[in-house]
């Protein structure tokens, strides 16, 4: 596959006159790697779809496509949010538990007040998620504690809050307002509403990361946080904000989960966090921080979901699915490394020749 030339990132804030846009060769390498990687994921996705379609043409029927997009939407939204976190060299393991908590909360709210408008539900979910994200972010940015540890702790805390609240209760789809559930399964122009929302989220996050100075600063923080701080980037504030936004997106995903599945209990979202990180990693978001895009993570999420849907169609036993996903993650991480090495050698070569 060929490497696409990428223009230097544009800024949306006015720069002092005469100052050229900052383009380090390292940033350029990162950009090249990212584009190549994303193309790779896209290629893998298309290949998988084509093979499965050839095996069973029903795989691309309207129903199947609908199911696929619906299934991927929630993971895509979570992966987009997680991308921002991982870019700054942090991680948020509490997203699964938070989705469970907010999904159940949405269900409870609808039981008491079935007439609540959808917009209100979405907003409430996002606010609740943002509050949880602020809790994580404050500890990580202000008390300067490692994100892995904090979010592992909040994973436990949110999950136990969910269990204590839900107890043995299960909210059935039958008790939920049908308008809400319809929203979760229907769509427009053949694409489900949830997928439209996921698309908007991915575009918004990518735009922010690519075109806003504060977005680009996230990459700087992830690459070398000390250097970033010394260059005047308010690292603490940026990280705090990133966790709030990720929390809000997680809240959104929680409400959408309730709409999509309808039946809610205390186990919702268990294990989701590792799937989200896997999706980001497969999609080319480097776990070391400093590179990757939301588009890549979204493709990673789509690829993982497609594998889940394709394997049964290919009559591959359920029991192989997890092993397959594990091998894919290893391949993705290995590929990342290979590309970085090759391209940085290329870069070095060019510099040496005065290019």
């Amino acid at each position, binding site marked *: 596959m060929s490497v696409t030339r990428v223009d230097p990132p544009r800024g949306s804030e006015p720069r002092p006159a005469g100052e050229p846009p900052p383009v380090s060769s390292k940033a350029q390498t990162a950009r090249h790697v990212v584009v190549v990687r994303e193309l790779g994921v896209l290629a893998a996705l298309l290949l998988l779809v084509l093979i499965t379609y050839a095996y069973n043409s029903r795989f691309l029927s309207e*129903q199947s496509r609908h199911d696929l997009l619906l299934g991927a939407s929630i993971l895509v939204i979570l992966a987009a949010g997680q991308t921002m976190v991982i870019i700054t060299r942090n991680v948020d393991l509490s997203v699964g538990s938070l989705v469970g908590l907010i999904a159940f909360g949405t269900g409870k709210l609808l039981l008491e007040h079935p007439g609540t408008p959808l917009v209100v539900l979405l907003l409430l979910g996002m606010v609740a998620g943002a509050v949880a994200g602020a809790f994580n972010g404050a500890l990580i940015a202000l008390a300067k504690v490692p994100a892995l540890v904090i979010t592992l702790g909040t994973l436990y805390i949110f999950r136990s809050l969910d269990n204590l609240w839900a107890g043995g209760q299960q909210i059935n789809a039958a008790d939920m307002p049908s308008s809400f559930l319809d929203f979760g399964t229907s769509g427009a122009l053949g694409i489900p509403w949830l997928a439209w929302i996921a698309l908007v989220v991915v575009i918004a996050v990518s735009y922010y990361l690519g075109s806003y100075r504060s977005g680009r600063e996230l990459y700087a923080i992830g690459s070398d946080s000390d250097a970033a701080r010394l260059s005047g980037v308010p690292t603490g504030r940026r990280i705090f904000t990133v966790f709030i936004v990720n929390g809000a997106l997680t809240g959104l995903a929680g409400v959408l989960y309730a709409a999509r599945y309808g*039946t809610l209990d205390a186990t919702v979202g268990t294990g989701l966090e590792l799937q989200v990180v896997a999706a980001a990693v497969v999609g080319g978001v480097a776990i070391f921080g400093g590179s990757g895009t939301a588009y890549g993570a979204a493709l990673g999420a789509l690829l993982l979901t497609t594998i889940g849907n394709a394997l*049964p169609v290919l009559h591959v036993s359920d029991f192989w699915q997890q092993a397959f996903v594990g091998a894919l993650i290893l391949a993705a991480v290995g590929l990342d490394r290979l590309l970085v090495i090759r391209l940085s050698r290329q870069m070095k070569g060019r510099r040496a020749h005065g290019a």
Partner: protein
Amino acid sequence: MTRSRRRLVSGAASLAILITLAASACGGTSRDDNNDSSSGSEPESSGEADPNAPIQEGLHITFLPKQINNPYFTVSDGGGEQAVSEFGGEYEEVGPSEATASSQVSYINTLTQQGVDAIAVSANDPNALCGALNQARSANIAVVTYDSDTSPDCRDVFVNQATSDSIAKIQLKLIAEQIGGSGQIAILSATPNATNQNAWIDVMKQELKKPQYANIDLVDIAYGNDDDEKSFQETQGLLSSYPDLKGIISPTTVGIAAAARYLSSSEYKGKVALTGLGTPNQMREYVKDGTVQEFALWDPEKLGYLAAYAAAALVSGQITGAPGETFEAGNLGQYTIQDDGVIVLGPPTVFNKGNIDDFDF
């Protein structure tokens, strides 16, 4: 590699080879000779049964379901609670939030320590609980399994909702009717190791060999792990993998509810039949909108109720778990213990549009 490291590696390798040789050379324990040895310490039976013994007062009976946040068990254990209050005992319900055997063992250990009088457990695995359960029985705790059995040497009696035969046969009969006697069917089960589902599936496979089911083909068994989302996705998978699928049997309340939900919002609604074991409250919507015609179950409340009375009867000496013994189970009447210490609640009930509104669980 440096020389010392090479030495280290080769030393380790030779050691490993030596150990392996020694292990295989010394004969060792292998599975064939194992089958003769005894299978475990079974506590001795407590002597003669006295059917006229009164139920003791203040019995502490604890219910330990497969999973604590599963609505089916909330109902069944509620029935147990009702029975316990009827005979003046103390009721408790504990359980893991994930349906695993090792977490159940932890609870059994706690109950043994607390010295309860009886445990009523629905097992996540037929064998993994045995060590802990037998330890409980050695501490004079009566062990009753309900809904999902363990190996017979680890419990005193098993309260079965219906015979495995009748549960399996009714589901097969229903699906055969609903698909017109011929076509492909699939099964959406619970966890791969679940005792009860596997017992029923085995009977179904045997039944399918009979001539009346000659035109019905079981193409796949999927496992939803009694998890709503997984069951949902597995249903999706079944329908896209088998274009000619005409029917799905889901012998688990979580599975059938998820499958019904998927079907009712998909293009397969009405075209692919769905039956199995479900609760009226969860299935009502889908019966009314035509996704599901008929399904079966028993009354889980009665199951828990019977289990509690069986436990009380054991502790009070009315029964010892031997076949042929009888006891009274409150307002359910008299029950007789069958072979292998099994007590059967009764025949399954079939629910459909006509009677579904009569029930509330």
